[in-house]
């Protein structure tokens, strides 16, 4: 199991357009990725390819989230997702 943490950079938090961009990126991976707020147990993590799950997570600007994935290429995949979360997507 690979694991990464990321600090949400988008000013509006992880919803609206930033959530859409993130979910689309997860959807393109051949892996199952989960997302949870930092400090929450791994079994409560949500499906990162679900925009509705991401929205219900309610991660705001500055919050730390944990991404997890298993399998070949998981490390690289998570690194690329962290990069997306740590960019202010709303400003672009």
């Amino acid at each position, binding site marked *: 199991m690979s694991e990464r943490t990321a600090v949400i950079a988008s000013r*509006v938090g992880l*919803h*609206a*357009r930033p*959530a*859409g961009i993130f*979910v*689309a990126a997860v959807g393109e991976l051949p892996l199952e990725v989960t997302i949870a707020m930092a400090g929450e147990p791994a079994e409560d993590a*949500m*499906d990162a*390819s*679900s*925009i*509705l*799950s991401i*929205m*219900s997570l*309610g991660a705001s600007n500055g919050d730390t989230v944990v991404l997890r994935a298993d399998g070949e290429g998981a490390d690289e995949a998570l690194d690329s997702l962290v990069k997306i979360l740590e960019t202010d997507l709303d400003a672009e």
Partner: protein
Amino acid sequence: MVGNKESRTIVQTLSGKASSDQAETGRTFSGVGVSPGRIIGSILVMPQAVQEPAVGERLAEGTAPEDASIALRAAAKAVQTNLTARSVGASGAGREVLEATALMANDPMLVKAAVKLITNGASAERAIWDAAASVAEMLHNLGGYMAERATDVLDVRSRIVAELRGVPAPGIPYSDTPFILVGEDLAPADTATLDPAKVLALVTSSGGPQSHTAIIARALGLPAVVAAAGVDGLSDGTVIFVDGAAGTIRVDPGTDEVALAKAWETTTAALAVFDGTGRLQDGHLVPLLSNVGGAKDAVKAAAAGAQGVGLLRTEFCFLGRDTEPTITEQVEAYRGVFDAFPGKKVVVRTLDAGADKPLPFLTDASEPNPALGVRGYRTDFTSPGVLERQLEAIAQAADDTEAQVWVMAPMISTAEEAEHFAGLCAAAGLTTPGVMVEVPSAALTASSILEHVDFVSLGTNDLTQYAMAADRQLGPLAALNTPWQPAVLQLIRLTVAGSHDQGHDKPVGVCGEAAADPALAVVLVGLGVSSLSMTARALSAVAAVLASVTLPEAQQLAALALTANSATDARRIVREKLPILNTLGL
């Protein structure tokens, strides 16, 4: 603007022209004309809202849960593909809404929840219905921005059910060629997907002069008829003639209608110009200003010759957000508007949230009667501070611009409230405070209110709904819900009288939809209204009609309208005395 008795019946006449559809040939419909224009085009009917599948509906006998799940996944995918394809053609906010809803349509969490219900024996339609309801409730309970997205989940649900049933998707139909949109009524959400380049005119069987359909039509300059009973029974592709001033529709138009539509094209070209000075025939000046909702609008209004802004709706800064915008953000947004009107008046209305414009951080969506609830100025009772910060932002933005910035509060009911608002303005350094007159109590106490503020502006849409106790969205009440109602005109007269009392003589403007109706504009000026503010598109038509009358003539027409027996009579009597309306097709 109002339906008469005949408008409720469908007159069927026979046309000499051959048609493939004998039953509909030459058939005419009458409704309430809400936005002028004469046009011929082929129609697309907005599909009926998707009906809820029966509670507890089970899988049909012989249908395996696996097959139903496959059908559901296919439907979800199809809806996603369709919404994604449409988002490519959209722009701005409309595009973002479509992109996000496309993702929701095929959301793994939503689909998994529905498949689980199917496995337990529910029909695919009922499964997605219930699964989406749970998700929507969850979002609703999160509040704020998420709560607003609950509507999108329910929209996606309707689309998936329509797909499963093989019926057209709800909402505005999509077409590559321009069409006349026919439906029951438009919802605010439909505006995001209404492409003014594709829609020629709007015709609805329900709704009134203040309905969203009417407001959208006037803002976009599209001819529109509402409350035309039966019109939504026409089939797609039917060619009709629409007269948005007379409120009439004719199926399979003849040579007369073709000529009228051609003449309208010429008129619109001639009416496209406003010279920038509103005046009557005798030279009496009536400044014509524009209602705007942001810098882009303001630039357009200035180009159309508007003599200032009579209503800057500041909601644009706040809508679609789950937190209050910062003062810096607000300053920037307001300055964009001020800069479009150097040396001219810009009347800023403070935040008007509530009722049909909810804001998650200010208004309570669970109020049983939002139109009579905490809205407009009243949000200052429950969320103090927001208004003061907004006034501070307006003052900062006003500081280094050449615009003359006036400020007014919406939904003021008492002189005491006006006094309090004036105090807040003074504290922020804003020198010209005013209030909206939308609540009948404010019209009745205009004299006392004007002891505390420098001007009032009549918001005729809300003033009408409150004076007539008629919800402005309700089609069956369309005849009550028109500013032509003599009672509404009396309230306007009293407001002007209040200004004349004790020698105040302070400006009384109108910034409601009423000001955009050229015939009613004459009556308003006759009642003593000093300036009119409207959508920029209406400026030239209103200016042309005002220039055809003198002040005594306008006063005479106002007197006739005030004493009329009904709104229909008031409108008819006034229009008969303004022959220019017929000449111009207004």
